[in-house]
């Protein structure tokens, strides 16, 4: 599956370095048996508000979108970024479509396994909106990083 990576607000095609994947369930069951694992695969029915796991041990965390309409992994991505403070790559796998990429990026996802978009169309999708109303888990410096209400306040203060 082609891989796109989002870096400083721009998508580019990436060549996949081989990963050793382990599922969260297997990892919690027996971490020693998977000591060499580099990527953690989290099923989208795992409740990350209760599961405790040292996610920082992995360079990539893979979240699953079995159908584009199944939006559980958006919450997982935000929890990983905002609650766990995870700074590695969060990769979307499954039914990853061009028109979902904007939402995924806003939730902190920065790796995309997709055949439905190339870097050009993904960049286009990301630039469709200049602002966002709400704080999410955008990467720092993204145009949507600062919510509209904050921009309004800074504009008032500047004036």
């Amino acid at each position, binding site marked *: 599956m082609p891989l796109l990576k989002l870096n400083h607000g721009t998508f580019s095609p990436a060549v996949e370095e081989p990963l050793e994947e382990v599922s969260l369930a297997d990892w919690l069951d027996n971490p020693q048996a998977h000591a060499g694992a580099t990527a953690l695969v989290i099923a989208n029915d795992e409740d990350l508000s209760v599961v405790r796991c040292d996610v920082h041990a992995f360079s990539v965390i893979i979240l699953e979108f079995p159908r584009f309409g199944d939006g559980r992994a*958006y*919450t997982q991505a935000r929890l990983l970024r905002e609650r766990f403070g995870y700074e590695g790559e969060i990769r979307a796998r499954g039914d990853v479509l061009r028109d979902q990429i904007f939402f995924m990026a806003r939730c902190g996802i920065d790796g995309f396994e997709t055949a439905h978009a190339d870097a050009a169309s993904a960049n286009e999708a990301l630039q469709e909106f200049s602002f966002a*109303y709400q704080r999410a888990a955008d990467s720092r410096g993204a145009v949507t990083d600062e919510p509209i209400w904050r921009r309004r306040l800074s504009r008032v203060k500047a004036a």
Partner: protein
Amino acid sequence: MYRYDEFDATMVAERATQFRGQVARRLSGELSEDEFKPLRLMNGLYLQLHAYMLRVAIPYGTFTSRQMRMLAHVARKYDKGYGHFTTRQNIQYNWPALVDVPDILDDLASVEMHAIQTSGNCIRNVTSDQYAGAAADEVEDPRPYAEMIRQWSTFHPEFSFLPRKFKIAVTASDNDRAATRVHDIGLRLYKNDAGETGFEVIVGGGLGRTPYIGHTIREFLPKEHLLSYLEAILRVYNTQGRRDNLYKARIKILVNTEGAERFGELVEAEWEAIKGGEIDLPAEEMARIDAYFAPPPFEALSVDSAALDQSRQDNDEFAQWLRVNTVPHKIPGYAIVNISLKPIGGIPGDISDEQMEAVADIAERYSFDEIRATHEQNLTLAHVKKDDLFAVWQALKAADLATANASLASDIIACPGLDYCNLANTRSIPIAQRISERMGDLEKQEDLGELKIKISGCINACGHHHVGHIGILGVDKKGEEFYQITLGGSAAEDASLGEIVGRGLSSGDVVDAVETLVGFYRDNRQDKERFLDTYRRLGAEPFKEALYAAA
């Protein structure tokens, strides 16, 4: 009312451009209908029985004359000269061509309107009390909070692919005109004993095939925490709501499976974790939004109007309309005017382009340029001087908009049914029309008092039949349309779900049945009892007996 700044305007314009691109990809064949479907459904565009249907958002039902004129323009230019107001305070167009939809959205964007989140499994258009800012019984105007919710929920990246659609309603009155107890989230703004304003948070109500009255999971939420608390509820729902069965995916199923107490604990735990973050708006931004809803420049008037008293004496028809379709205003010398979109024998909620223009003119001249759409598929002019009521009535009458039946038997909610909808089992509109004609005489209707008849053409309950004083549900039995009657429902502060009475009736018999039930009520009511009160006092049995003895 709220006006867009450059940020709001940019978001709406960019959404229109984005959708134009999506339509172009569909028309070029780059997207299949299957791939296009979720995209159009994010933007209020449905494929119905005969054509596309476009649903345009009217956030919390408040809009201006200029916006109404644009709605008329859309009806004229792109549709068949009419629109249809819905139970979410929105308007639907039943006949747009796909190729025209991007132009419609551009036209709408030019007057700060759009179709964002009027469909799809996301947070839908937030609704509120149509009397907001005018009602004598409200603690404060609920619309600033509805506007905050509109902004917070617009393109929310985490909550755009929920298990199912999600509807929020806000009221600031003990008289619930926003049906908050039958919403995914209902919010009731009130003042607590300490004199602080905050929200009662009600979760898990809903209609559809499994109706529930909502549960209060928090008695008092300080108003500055509204958005973080909503985010916590939505997050619990997004992760825990069922996705394996379309019919069990609404939050009401989760709340009632977990139990309201347990669900509330999950929300509180999540809220604890996020409430210090940057979700709640700072006081300056809340004040900025609040300021848009400052009262219009009311004149200092006396409570009574001599001109009004004279016209009332001179004209019985006007006097009747005045009694039925106007409501006391919180400011002396003003009144709230209800415009019925339920002419006798008409299609509930339908309005022609010419009528839209007429309402726009009247609102501009007599009601501070502001119009409200109601969840009962009518319109409201919130701030009319009593001195002007006769002129307003004459202008409405000239536009065939002065039917004096607000909240009476012929003020019927009906879903579009099999005349338009591809989910429907039966027709709803012709049943509504025939009941309306049967109930026709307005004086008799006034004598009957408040009577809410609600009709759904299938179990999805878009016509809110569960909460009708008399509810009618259309079911298909071997290719024939049958109608099941429920009694005793209410969507107001005394919310209840109607009980099914007996077997289904044919489309011919159901109109007779309604007449029989109404007659039984009239013969058995005490004092000023409404139909609902008599039903609650006597119970279902005598009504059933009356119904099936007659049949």
